[in-house]
């Protein structure tokens, strides 16, 4: 594992914004697509960046995950346009269908992941697809003009999919 980190760090060494690029690639190459404490420590030490700064960067960008992510990520848009077209009930539906419960620390949680590590649910402020509201994304695909029915079908299909080996 650390050999791979070393290669990634060597690739970006001396380039501006190296830390961001390294964090991004390390996350992509880590099981469950996240940055764990050991990885952050390793990167900080090898790149000679203060630990607090590495953590600051990793927590600033919503792109970085500090918790293990599910196989599929469902991102519900909670922008104004989507909100007025019912994105909150959609979010509630997704959570309910996956058996996820919003915790009391709701506002401090950026995402929720099912125990079987199959799904992660998160929200986003805006996809820039307001004309197609409400929108949500499953992994890289955006679904527009979502309804409760369409969502139910979509989720059923996803759940029926075989778990990645």
């Amino acid at each position, binding site marked *: 594992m650390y050999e791979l980190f070393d290669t990634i760090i060597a690739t970006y060494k001396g380039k501006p914004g190296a830390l961001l690029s390294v964090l991004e690639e390390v996350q992509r190459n880590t099981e469950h697509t996240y940055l764990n404490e050991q990885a952050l420590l390793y990167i900080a030490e090898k790149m000679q960046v*203060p630990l607090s700064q590495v953590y600051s960067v990793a927590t600033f960008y919503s792109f970085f995950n500090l918790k293990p992510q599910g196989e599929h990520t469902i991102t519900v848009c909670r922008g104004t346009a989507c909100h007025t077209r019912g994105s909150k009930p959609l979010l509630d539906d997704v959570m309910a269908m996956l058996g996820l419960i919003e915790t009391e620390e*709701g506002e401090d949680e950026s995402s929720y992941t099912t125990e079987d590590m199959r799904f992660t649910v998160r929200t986003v402020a805006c996809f820039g697809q307001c004309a197609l509201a409400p929108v949500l994304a499953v992994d890289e695909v955006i679904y527009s003009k979502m309804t409760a029915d369409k969502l139910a079908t979509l989720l059923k299909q996803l759940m029926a999919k075989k778990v990645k080996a």
Partner: protein
Amino acid sequence: MANEMITLCIDSQEVTVVKGTTILDACLQVGIKIPTLCHLEDISSHGSCGICVVEVKNSKRLVRSCITSALPGMEVSTNNERIRASRKLNLELVLANHPLECLTCERNTNCELQSLAQQLGVRESRFQRTKRNLIPLDYSSSSLVRDPNKCILCNRCVEVCSQVQGVHAIDIIGRGLRSKVSTFMDKGLGSSVCTNCGQCALVCPTGAITERSHIEEVFSDIANPNLTTIVQTAPAIRVGIGEAMGMPWGALVTGQMVAGLRRLGFSKVFDTQFAADLTIMEEGHELISRIQKKGVLPMITSCSPGWIKYIEHFYPEQLDHLSTCKSPQQMFGAIAKTYYAQQAGLDPRNIRVVSIMPCTAKKFEAGRSEMDGAFEFWKEEMALSEGERFADVDYALTTRELASMFKRVGIQFASLPEEEFDSPLGMSTGAAVIFGATGGVMEAALRTAYEVLTKKSLPSIDFTDLRGMDGIKEATVDINGTALRVAVANTLGNARTLMEQIQEGTSPYAFIEVMACPGGCLGGGGQPIPTNEAIRKKRAASIYQEDRNFEVRKSHENSEIQALYKDFLIEPLGEKSHHLLHTTYTKRGQYALFDSF
């Protein structure tokens, strides 16, 4: 090269300033102090709070005066309805998420946010809190407590920790509503590279970072008739405590301080300066021995516990350069519970040593497990059990905590009579008082080392090259025809410069003094708030004044120190000194804080 001057107009008054001056500083020249909150005098401007806005003609928006340079011909207004409304609005927005717990806050009546709310006439809290949850307090450090709920994200603590100290223990974590100042993985200061220097607490405009208080424990020990409570005061307290009691910056109040401590009920009022003289005896001889025996050089002072933790984290391979001498606080504790206990016929288990320090890191230092020389000394003779293990120093209070104790019991500090320290651990010299200023330990050590090595009297005992607020100072002293090069650094950022030379093997020095805080202990993290460059200079002036007030100004001429060696320690660097006055250090590293790879 002459500085280019520019002329601009502030509130219809013409003013000429050096090019590059901020509008904020230019305004001071016409007698207007623009209110600020996040702005950190002498260090940095972050421009995050939006309190310092002013109006510039032909600019649509109000500009933040702390980060905007004055330009030639600029027409600035600092006072109109729009400006006042904007400042007030920005402050009200900051206050929306700030707990209105002023009455029970440690910084009550000495809080910049509170003063600003008063100054700008905020009379109601119009905006609803936007943060739903409270963040748990960080109690992980033995020196400092952080309450993120009181934090207004001004970034000052982050700036001082990274830019001045180069420690980077804290940073802004998260973003938007979730932003907070925190450490790596939110593990808390106690599990970070934090050196406990407390500069963050000194610059915090609110009560978000404060020292870990031990006032109650000390009051309770004083009240316990079975205990002998001994108090020791660091040199920098006598030039700081007056400020916290309403006196002018840098007021020299040694006598009142002693009287006040006696009124608080301490059994004996002694002086850390006694131990500072002792430190010079040990450290001076250690330096001489290292030079003569070709030991590891440069030798670096070890009085500043912030500095010690810094080198343990950042230069763990260079610990051999540190003097093995304990700090004066710890030497005092060890001597009080051995030599003094013997002399006074006291059971060391019933002695409590309380130190008053300008320092938050002293709390951590007092708690270090290796700081129990007195227990080890008595262990066999008194057949002490492990359960009875006691520390050399029981509590280290900051200058601010002492002020708080004085206030609680209603001591009218300024009108106290001047009193003298108790004997014997109250006697000290001019060499000891200057420990409180950057360069002082070096100067004191040279006064003694020179005379011991040359057996001659120093022509002049004032090493003025080593005084003043420069970050790094150096001097060369001729001792018996050998040039001894020495350097003095204050702030950990400056210490790093000297450490890099050592790391590269290019350090030209034989002896280095490092103090973690700007200006030395007189600018320590436990000193009264505010502490800034101007105030530090006043305190330093009083320190050197006090030095001149002493008839005896060299540590080796302190008669009580001479008696201590004659009756107890026998000789510097001797067997007893080795056990009681010298210590070892821990390789901590920066990243090895956690289970490593």
